[in-house]
Structures are given as structure tokens and as C-alpha cells.
């Protein structure tokens, strides 16, 4: 069983994050990912970067991952 901490580690290794929060029950995970690398990228491209970081684990270990992918500026905006 995969823990949210492990998923966090996988993402962290692939993407330099300003803020990274992962919750989950071993199969379904929710992640908030704030990173500079998302700047100028579409939502699809951002999610693809995260999927890339997860690689084959996305198929084998992680059944579902809901994510919010924000730049540091967007993250500030959502925090008011």
C-alpha cells in the first residue's frame, strides 16, 4: 500500500515545489502542488508534468490522484 508520504516523495523528486500537500487512503490521493515550473503552462501540461514525475507508479500503485496545480502567484491569490 502506498502512503501519502511516498506519493509526496515521488512528486518531490520530479518537481521542485514551493508547497506540496498530499492526502490519501492508499488508493485515492489528493494533492496540492505549488511550483514555478507550472508558469506559462496549461492545466493539461501541468498535470502531465506531475504524471511524468509519478511515472509507472501512476499505473501500478496509485489508482487515482486528484490534483490542484498552481504557480506561487496563483497560490497567493487563492489564499486571499
Amino acid at each position, binding site marked *: 500500500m502506498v502512503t501519502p508520504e511516498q506519493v509526496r516523495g515521488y512528486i518531490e523528486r520530479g518537481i521542485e515545489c514551493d508547497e506540496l500537500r498530499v492526502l490519501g487512503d492508499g488508493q485515492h490521493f489528493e494533492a496540492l502542488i505549488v511550483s514555478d515550473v507550472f508558469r506559462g503552462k496549461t*492545466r*493539461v501540461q501541468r*498535470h*502531465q508534468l506531475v*504524471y511524468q514525475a509519478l511515472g509507472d507508479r*501512476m499505473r501500478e500503485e496509485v489508482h*487515482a*490522484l*486528484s*490534483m490542484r496545480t498552481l504557480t506561487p502567484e496563483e497560490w497567493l491569490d487563492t489564499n486571499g
Partner: protein
Amino acid sequence: MDVQERIKQTVTGNRVVLYMKGSAQMPQCGFSANAVQILKACGANDLVTVDVLADNDVRQGIKQYANWPTIPQLYIKGEFIGGSDILREMHESGELQKLLEA
């Protein structure tokens, strides 16, 4: 016909296509059910759904087609729009409604 070619024909031959688990009437996964619900709420009455559970070639092939490892996947006018989270965000911001009306 090659599965990639088949997918291309489906997404370019129909305006709104959702690849999902199950049917619009009987979704087999919560994420697919949400996607159908959102599209209905946006008034997408020309929605075509493809059940990936009914065809394993399509189930695997669609992941390569858009370089996207998860289902559901929405296509509008042949263009990959996104998966479950993106649909929800675009619905909340009103972007999806605009895209479907265009």
C-alpha cells in the same frame, strides 16, 4: 484499423467525446460519473461517450493518445481538454460552458 487511428476518427468525427468507465446512464467509476454530471449541467446535449471497459485496446490506447494515464478524458472538436480535475475547475470558472457553446 490501428487503435490510435480509431480514436482519432472518434474524437474528430464527434464534437464532444468523453472516454469513461461505463456508460453515461451507468458510470462504473465515481470520476466518470462526475464528468458526465458536469457535462450535463453544462448542457452538452451532443455528448458521445466511449466505455473503455468494453474495449481493452481503447482503454490502453487512449492513455497514449493524449499522453494522459487516467480516465475520464474529455475531447472537444478533436482537442484533448482534460481529465476529471480539469473538468471540475473549468466548470467552476465557467470556461467549460463557454467552450461547449462555441
